[in-house]
């Protein structure tokens, strides 16, 4: 049963037997939904790492600056 592709042409595929808008908007939404919830976390991770790296370097720089000033 799997060997039957239901469409003979690409335009027919796009047309979805008259339900193009409904079918494609659902699959479109689904794609957006999946992508958003995978890529937003990934992008956020990059941001977090960047931000934390910046802070880390910043505080290390501050420590270095303080060390020669010599309260220890």
């Amino acid at each position, binding site marked *: 049963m799997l060997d039957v592709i239901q469409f003979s042409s690409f335009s027919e595929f796009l047309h979805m037997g008259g*339900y193009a808008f*409904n079918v494609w908007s659902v699959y479109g939404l689904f794609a957006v939904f999946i992508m958003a919830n995978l890529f937003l976390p990934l992008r956020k991770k990059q941001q977090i790492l960047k931000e934390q790296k910046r802070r880390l370097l910043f505080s290390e720089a501050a420590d270095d600056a303080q060390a020669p000033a010599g309260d220890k």
Partner: protein
Amino acid sequence: MWLWFAKLGSPKWFYELSSKWLPWLVGAMAILLSVGVIWGLLFLPPDYQQGYSSRILIVHVAVAGTSLAFFPLMAVAGTITLVWRMKLADMVAKNAAPLGAWFSFITLATGSIWGSVSWGTWWEWTDSRLVSMLFQFFLLLGVISLRSALEDSDKAAKACALLSIVGCINVVIIKYSVEWWNTLHQPSSPVSLSPDSPNGPEFWIATGIMILAVYLFLAVSLILATRNEILVRERQAQWVQDLVRQE
């Protein structure tokens, strides 16, 4: 057993373990999703009544079914937060709420789109599934709203945990009361795609694959978000700082 439990509660342990699992989960998800979508879009025969619009259902049913998992999930995580004070449970719960709202929203949206074909209307108050899903959506938004309103993150964690537990009970009650309400209002009974309809079993196999895929997606997305949360909340920990330096 207890040791394992305590260990699982450690964000570091979870971070490392999930690093190992993620590739497998993502792989399985990708395969199942593409099988489901390609099958759904290319191979699935048209429904004898609804034509190709039945292809919507694969997505709709999978997302709808999965979205019901969120309140139980959050309630369990909430109990763990309140009883064992496990930070990890709250990190999961915190990210589960918005994800659950996404799921509910997509259920509502795909359901509406399907409804516009099968019922000729985008929204129908006489269907109990619609109405109770709408209120589940509201409850999730309530949890999110409470979380953002309480500034103290520790307090917010516990408050949301409690609300999730109360809400979980409520989702069940709402579901049944709405159903009962509707049977009394004589619902306009929509066409049903039952397993023994003339469509044959393919539809249900495709749906099953989709459901599995969407569950995997839920896991992957939640784990990704939780890992971010760990990086933020544990930013002072040595291991996170080492990790940041490596990047």
